[in-house]
């Protein structure tokens, strides 16, 4: 099949959804396609830091200034995705005074509020900081949920008439007479929401302009169009802890290095990270030393991390870029600035623009720049409004408390639901009948899961990123089956079962990097619950196995009952008493 659109955006991360929203709000006809879930790429694999800019205040002041500016914007337009935790740059005895001073001055030069704290003052904020720290700088770092932010951008795009297609990888870029005119996508399970078992289809989408916002994957799209986009993907590990050992972002105050940040994120703390160039954004080694280094380095700042429980680890790939012939060898030295590549100017290929480099905190600003560029190309005469108009869910939080009472949600469930849903809580939680908690670790109720299913279809990983269900200590051991049950009866049992198996396997992929101590015990419990109690590993339905039911125990002769007659004369169902 074929269709046409004004602007086709490739990539469902923060940049892509940000561009789609921006252009849709300017009145453009926008279609966004994403190969996996929203946030499937780098956006879904970051530590969730809302930069104050402090990290770049010495090395890259341009980036630092952009960060603090956007930090303020996001607090306004995405309040339900942001938690203003504050951040500390902590100096250990072996870290130099010279760098500490540079950091402080750098922050001030970039208009980043910065305050020096004595070790006592720092430990008053974060009691678990090491006893021997020298001092700290306090900055307005925060935590941000990239999943909800992208989903909110996508929802806003749709609210402004745009079309968003996930699980729709681009298989070709259509070039006619030396101009990009659209793309070919493969809908894995048809158009619209994902649905397990539904047949795929191919669609050619013609567009006036194509935006390649695929980050670390930008080179692949470039190749399909016949142009070189030299992204230098760099991997970094993030280690997820079982609870918030700190409530403030804790950075090490040193020039650069692996394992120098702890970000409190929702119910967890995330340790990061490494910076290693890789050849392929999808196929790269995930190694034990990376996990070990996070714990061994960061315990110097927060000693209890050594004994704390790790629940999983994940890796992300930064879409670093530098103009040809810059020749930086160490990926940590490559600029975090973003680059707009107009392929008409650059490669004599009109019809397509790529965006590479950059970072999550400034996604909106990047999107604005790209959208200005595309608007100019297409003659759209409208201003960017994304810095002023709140994202869906982030308005009028004050009216929420009453609503939560009305839905009978107990604290802390109520508080958690409210934080996640923002001002959508009212419409989402207004259901008939009981609304039990499905995910105990994260406090997610059935109504929230149902709402996510209405957006995401049978893709429980997409439900997960919207709700955080299955992201806590048990890693889906207790809740993944109940999450899948919500799909039924809208979807058949077999489809719900496939969705459940897919989620449980996805959780396992990250959990294997935390398999010692408590989490190995948890893994064995999860295995026992699923294999012993549910027999999910040898289930005849899953294995399509025929079982000779008649060959097995058909019950004790005196235990079996002639089908009880209706009425009072029926007999006991089990031969009588069992010790009571």
């Amino acid at each position, binding site marked *: 099949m074929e269709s046409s659109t004004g602007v086709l955006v490739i990539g469902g991360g923060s940049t892509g959804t940000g561009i789609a929203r921006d252009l849709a709000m300017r009145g453009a006809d926008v279609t966004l396609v994403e190969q996996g879930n929203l946030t499937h790429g780098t956006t879904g694999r970051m530590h969730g830091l809302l930069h104050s800019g402090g990290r770049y205040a010495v090395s890259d002041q341009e980036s630092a200034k952009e960060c603090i500016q956007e930090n303020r914007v996001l607090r306004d337009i995405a309040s339900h995705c942001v938690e203003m935790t504050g951040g500390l740059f902590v100096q250990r005895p072996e870290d130099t005074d010279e760098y500490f001073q540079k950091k402080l001055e750098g922050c001030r030069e970039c208009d980043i509020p910065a305050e020096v704290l004595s070790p006592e003052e720092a430990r008053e904020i974060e009691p678990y900081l090491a006893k021997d720290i020298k001092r700290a700088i306090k900055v307005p770092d925060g935590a941000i949920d990239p999943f909800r932010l992208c989903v909110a951008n996508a929802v806003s795009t749709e609210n402004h008439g745009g079309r968003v297609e996930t699980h729709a990888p681009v298989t070709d870029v259509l070039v006619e007479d030396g101009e990009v005119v659209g793309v070919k996508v493969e809908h894995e399970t048809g158009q619209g929401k994902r649905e397990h078992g539904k047949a795929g289809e191919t669609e050619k989408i013609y567009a006036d302009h194509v935006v390649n916002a695929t980050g670390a994957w930008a080179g692949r799209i470039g190749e399909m169009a016949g142009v070189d986009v030299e992204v230098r993907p760099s991997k970094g590990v993030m280690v997820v802890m079982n609870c918030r050992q700190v409530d403030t972002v804790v950075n090490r105050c040193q020039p650069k290095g692996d394992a120098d940040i702890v970000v409190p994120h929702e119910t967890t703390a995330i340790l990061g990270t490494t910076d290693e160039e890789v050849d392929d954004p999808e196929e790269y080694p995930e190694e034990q030393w990376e996990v070990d280094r996070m714990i061994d380095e960061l315990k110097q700042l927060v000693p209890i991390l050594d004994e704390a429980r790790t629940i999983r680890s994940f890796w992300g790939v930064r879409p670093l870029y530098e103009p040809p012939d810059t020749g930086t060898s160490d990926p940590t030295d490559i600029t975090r600035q973003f680059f707009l590549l107009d392929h008409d100017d650059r490669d004599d290929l009109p019809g397509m623009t790529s965006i590479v480099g950059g970072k999550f905190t400034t996604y909106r600003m990047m999107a604005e720049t790209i959208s200005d560029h595309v608007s100019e190309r297409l003659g759209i005469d409208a201003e960017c409004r994304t810095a002023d108009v709140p994202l869906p869910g982030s308005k009028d939080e004050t009216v929420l408390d009453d609503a939560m009472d009305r839905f009978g949600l107990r604290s802390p469930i109520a508080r958690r639901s409210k934080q996640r849903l923002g001002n959508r809580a009212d419409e989402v939680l207004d259901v008939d009948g009981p609304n039990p908690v499905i995910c105990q670790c994260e406090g997610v109720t059935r109504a929230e899961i149902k709402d996510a299913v209405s957006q995401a279809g049978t893709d429980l990983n997409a439900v997960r990123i919207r709700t955080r269900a299955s992201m806590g200590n048990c890693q889906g051991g207790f809740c993944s089956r109940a999450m899948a049950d919500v799909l039924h009866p809208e979807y058949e049992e077999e489809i719900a079962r496939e969705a459940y198996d897919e989620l449980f396997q996805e959780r396992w992929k990250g959990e294997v990097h935390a398999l010692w101590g408590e989490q190995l015990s948890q893994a064995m419990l999860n295995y026992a619950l699923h294999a012993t109690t549910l027999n999910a590993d040898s289930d005849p*339905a899953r294995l399509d196995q025929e*079982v000779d039911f008649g060959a097995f125990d058909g019950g004790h002769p005196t235990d079996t009952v002639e089908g009880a007659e209706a009425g009072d004369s029926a007999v006991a169902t089990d031969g009588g008493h069992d010790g009571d």
Partner: protein
Amino acid sequence: MAIEDDVLVVGGGLAAIAAAVGAHEQGARVRLVSHKQSTMRQASGLIDILGYTPDGDGPVVDPFDAIEELPEGHPYERVGVDAVRAGLDMFDDAAGDAYTGGHTDKNALVPTHGGAIKPTARYPQSAASGLASAGGDTLFVGFDSMIEFDAPVAADHLAATGVPYETEGVTIEFPGGLRDDAKVTRYAHLLDRNADLTVDGTDVPARTALAERVKDHVGEHERVGFPAVLGDDHPADIREELANRVGAPVFEVPMGPPSLPGLRLEDRLYEYLHEIGVRVSTGNPIVDVEPDDGRVDRVVGDHSGREVPYKAEEYILATGGLVGKGIDSDREGVYEPVFDCHVPHPADRYDWFEDGVFDDHEFARFGVPVDTGLRPLDANDEPEFENLRAAGSILGGYDFPSEKSGSGVSLATGYAAGETAGERV
């Protein structure tokens, strides 16, 4: 002064209980010392012996046949098939009328709360009329406030396993307006007390009110399955009354934690220990071991910070596997925390697991290796201590979730270890 007994059992689960009974039956004075709640309350209450071979063949019809074929080092191979039968006989005595399945060597197939079927050797009376291997059109009833059992999903799943009968599931509101997220014990106690519930402005006893809601759905169905919440103290009475009122036999579908059938079994077995005169101390971890010339001389318990020594002739270690923390680990390796017995494991922790969630994981077989007298062996295959035996999921060399062999191994090795220890004092 130490607390002195003939046999000291360290642990509180199925294997520890079996060991205590085994030693007691040999005339020994026995004490059982446990630390935390056992993992029995997390288990479904079914007593599996062997449902699948280590190669994954199954469901096995006759577990005793399959046991003869197990490889060297498997706990069943260590004790032999007669010990498995002896352990089960002990269980049948201890569980009494609450359990059935001993009329045949064959496994039964029982529906799980997800709707799959699983092979098991002994099952609670409460599950008896629900066997998938017994036939009879089945209605599942779930409660819309309870996420552990989605009756329509389970019914459709059960049908997909190919059972030769009709299945249907219906979700109802539990009468009387229990809070969302009420614990399973709340439902059970309401039904135990048969308390009056207010339904449409009228007070109705709980069992009657529940039956009224189910009755119209029963139709031609030959049996009715509920989630396992039908009473803690009076389950048989409740099933009988519900069956009478709905007009068909009533059964429970075993569930995961917190599992009422698991709790009932734990209560029943501790009652049995009490009846036969085994001494039980709970809440006290063993924190130190005093060896003497290749033997365990004394062990030291922690009673709220006070050290209390225990002394016995023979010791049995039944503290559980990875779940019960009888086996523990850190980033460097895997260990047994009480007696520091040798636990073989790959040096690289990335060799402990496989990529597929149900693949053949090395960690699933972590545990202590033992000789045929169930004595833990050191790295040189020599007994760690002359008078220490191990039983249950602390043993290595088998993958109980995949084999569905957890309860059977606990009973067989526990009882065998207890008997041997009891004979020697």
